């Protein structure tokens, strides 16, 4: 990509990532949540890949670690659901007594579930993107 895109990306990518994390961490307080924030976080990595190429982004977050993080998110979400069995039932909100409503640390397992969905959705969208880009690079290499 051109110098303009790279410079703008370097300036804004941290802000995009932070905004995605904000949306996820405040998912139980304000509109948003794990899915939307996860896609925004994935978009910041997609931005990095588009501006600086696959090698730079693989140094930050490679495709293999994306697969790992996605599976980790799925396991974390299932583990939260199964932990509820200990107290009441599947998906029981077992720590909701702590924290007052409206504070960042409140609502029991909901923020944790949001973080699990962030890992799952962010890494999933990013690995889909990487798969499509890698295939396209192969085809361009074949044509030349």
């Amino acid at each position: 990509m051109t110098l303009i895109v790279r410079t703008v990306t370097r300036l804004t990518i941290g802000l995009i990532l932070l905004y995605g994390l904000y949306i996820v961490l405040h998912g139980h307080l304000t509109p948003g949540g794990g899915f939307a924030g996860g896609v925004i976080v994935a978009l910041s990595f997609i931005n990095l890949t588009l501006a600086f190429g696959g090698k730079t982004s693989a140094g930050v977050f490679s495709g293999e670690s994306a697969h790992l993080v996605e599976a980790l998110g799925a396991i974390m979400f299932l583990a939260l659901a199964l932990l509820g069995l200990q107290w009441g039932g599947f998906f029981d909100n077992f720590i909701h007594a702590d924290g007052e409503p409206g504070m960042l640390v409140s609502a029991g397992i909901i923020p944790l579930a949001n973080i699990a969905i962030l890992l799952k959705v962010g890494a999933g969208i990013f690995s889909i993107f990487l798969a499509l880009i890698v295939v396209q690079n192969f085809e361009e290499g074949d044509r030349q």
Partner: protein
Amino acid sequence: MIELYVLLGLMIAGAVIAVEVKDLLSAVIAVGVVGLALSIAFLLLRAPDVAITQIVVEIAAVILLIRATLNRDISSRPSAGRPFGAVMGLAFLGLGVLASLTAFPEGLSPFGSPLMTVSAFYPADAMSGTGATNVVSAVILDYRGYDTLGEATVLFTAVVGVLAVMRATGRRDAEGSGESHG
């Protein structure tokens, strides 16, 4: 409510343009217009959660489509000269309109008016029951956790499918017989 109908008209126009236009990049941009109008429509219907999700997923989808279609000459598109398909499409559209007219003789009830009992319970109970001030989050992650688990499974299946179909090694093996795949 008039702005909602303007947005709906814009979405229909964008969808028709996306199907009819010859240039793939223009089609992708028209699809993006549909998604953006849908996001604003969600905002007007007071669903900010869905609006945020819609706009970020739309951005990701447009980036993916542009990367997947740009610099690639896919010339095969359905030819316009297929009267049978157009006639059948119009016939089924008319059938649907006729069926809905007979099903709702005095028109549809206003948006969101026949509230289910459970949708009155969720806003009342969400604060005390879960401690979350965002009722939507409380519903999708606490009351309806099963739904979210199913959604996550759907996304997981989609990712596995994409990775299985688009993996690089399979493409390399098929290099010799690449012509037959088109």
